[in-house]
């Protein structure tokens, strides 16, 4: 499924240098450096307004930016739109659910970068959509209307669309923010399973710090548009870091898969 060439382990999938983004003249992302190795899961955290989503969109080539973004060593600015869409799949926070569309047709839209103008889906495209549905346990939903599905089911459909894109890099903007705790875990487990089975590289933004720490190999803490901490979850999720940038008193409890963060009343 993935179209990434055989890679030497440790090769960089995403390289970001001095990324700056302005929205309506306001500087939102201010000189961010960030690397994601092939097959790695990196999660960007930060308080509201830190620029997480904006940075992610820019890295996905969806916003104009300053600095350099490279995917698999190639500068995004030099790539054609369709080429980009075959290299990176993005699932944005709460995507639009088109009224009346069937799950299968929605997932099939993920094949857009492979369909020539005026062309139609090939058998390979239909197969890729089928396969993406199967990978996310969505086969029974294929004929259902997307707008009749629950939040957790929808999130899986959005992921299936991204998976059908056949891209080696997956960008996820708050993939679990609309879900209850059980569905959060279900979705993240699915992403992790796909990552290991298909060698996908995952760059995500997340709100819930404990959950973020449990799934990420490395984390990047953004505050005011700058990187203020980066490293393994236990290096980033410290009482000092969170007190300084979230202005909150927390207690860090060591967990099986990473530190657990509990906010405590002052």
């Amino acid at each position, binding site marked *: 499924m993935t179209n990434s060439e055989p890679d030497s382990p440790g090769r960089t999938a995403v390289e970001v240098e001095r990324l700056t983004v302005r929205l309506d003249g306001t500087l939102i992302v201010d000189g961010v450096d960030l690397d994601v190795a092939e097959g790695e899961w990196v999660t960007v955290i930060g308080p509201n307004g830190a620029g997480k989503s904006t940075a992610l969109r820019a890295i996905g080539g969806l916003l104009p930016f300053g600095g350099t973004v490279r995917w698999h060593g190639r500068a995004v600015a030099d790539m054609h739109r369709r080429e980009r869409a075959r290299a*990176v799949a*993005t699932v944005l926070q709460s*995507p639009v659910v088109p009224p009346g569309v069937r799950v299968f047709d929605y997932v099939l839209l993920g094949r857009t970068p492979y369909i020539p103008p005026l062309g139609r889906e090939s058998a390979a495209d239909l197969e890729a959509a089928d396969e993406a549905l199967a990978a996310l346990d969505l086969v029974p939903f294929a004929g259902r209307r997307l707008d009749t599905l629950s939040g957790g089911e929808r999130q899986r459909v959005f992921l299936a669309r991204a998976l059908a894109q056949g891209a080696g890099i997956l960008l996820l903007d708050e993939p679990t923010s609309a879900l209850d705790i059980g569905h959060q875990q279900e979705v993240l487990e699915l992403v992790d399973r796909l990552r290991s089975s298909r060698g996908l590289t995952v760059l995500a933004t997340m709100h819930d710090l404990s959950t973020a720490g449990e799934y990420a190999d490395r984390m990047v803490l953004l505050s005011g548009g700058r990187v203020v901490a980066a490293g393994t979850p236990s290096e980033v999720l410290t009482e000092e870091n969170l007190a300084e940038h979230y202005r909150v008193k927390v207690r860090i409890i060591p967990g099986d898969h990473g530190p657990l963060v509990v906010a405590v009343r002052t």
Partner: protein
Amino acid sequence: MTERRRPAGLRPAWLAAGVLAVLVATILGLAFGSVSLPPGGVAVEMLNLLPGVRLTSGLSDREVAILTQLRLPRVVLGLLVGALLALAGAAYQGAFRNPLADPHLLGVASGAGLGVTAVIVLGASGAADGLTGLPIGVPAAAFAGAIGAVTLTWLLGAAGGRDRSPATLILAGVAVSAFLSAAQTYLLQRHLESVRDVYSWMLGRLSTAGWHDVLVVLPYAVVTCVIVLAQRRELDVLTVGDAEAASLGLHPQRVRYLLIVAASLGTAAAVSVSGLIGFVGIIVPHTLRLLAGPGNRALLPLSVLLGAAFLALTDLLARTAGGDAEIPIGVVTAFLGAPFFVLVLRTSRTAPE
């Protein structure tokens, strides 16, 4: 789950139903009117128009003349205008991602109307005896007015900020429409000699149509249909939102501009030959969405076919329902469309952006 999954395209059964609807509407439109002709004979005469076909229809020479000289151009014009208005409506709805978008509600038709009025009152003062022999500049002026109007509506609608409900754009369209109508009225007051011509045209009519009008509108119709139908898959991609569409390799704004220009061209062509015929772009696409689903790959071609059939039948109603006096076709579509619009408004409110 043994169903073979296939993309939501145009099912052959729907295509056949659409073609059948056009044929039935054409035969009925040709057969009935101030003089009724047997539909069977009409169908045979239509076959006779094909090269190499010679069948006896049982119609007199006079009846054949009525059929081919008077009714046929009118029915064909109705088919073209209906197809264009319905297709433009479906294209606007997709491009703006707004179920209420329609050539008239967006003010596009008023813009085209202003363009036509300007040409009639300012330019073609020689053609004071009506619009027979539509000045060749009319569709171009209508197109300029249409593009101006849709741009204005879009800018006004966007001025409401990011929190845009479907109604905001339509309110902007209503404002633009009112403004352009006022400009048109002003223009008319300055040129009272043209009032009769302009009003009889504005109410929507296919009655003075000859083959000339058909030939004027045909190239625009072809261009519009080719552009919009070629973008039908892209329109489906647009439904997922601009950022997502861009992440799928599409240039959403480019697709949107192209569709809006093409739909405005179609609207302008329709308006310049037939005046203001409202609601076709709402009634036809929405009915089809209920029947055949929301996918644009089925919706757009079916809108062409059913829009054509719908307007040919509406014209039949306009010609026959009022006895001797013909009802302007724009009045008939408004009678049908206004209640339908309320229905769409009520059901589309539940679909948040």
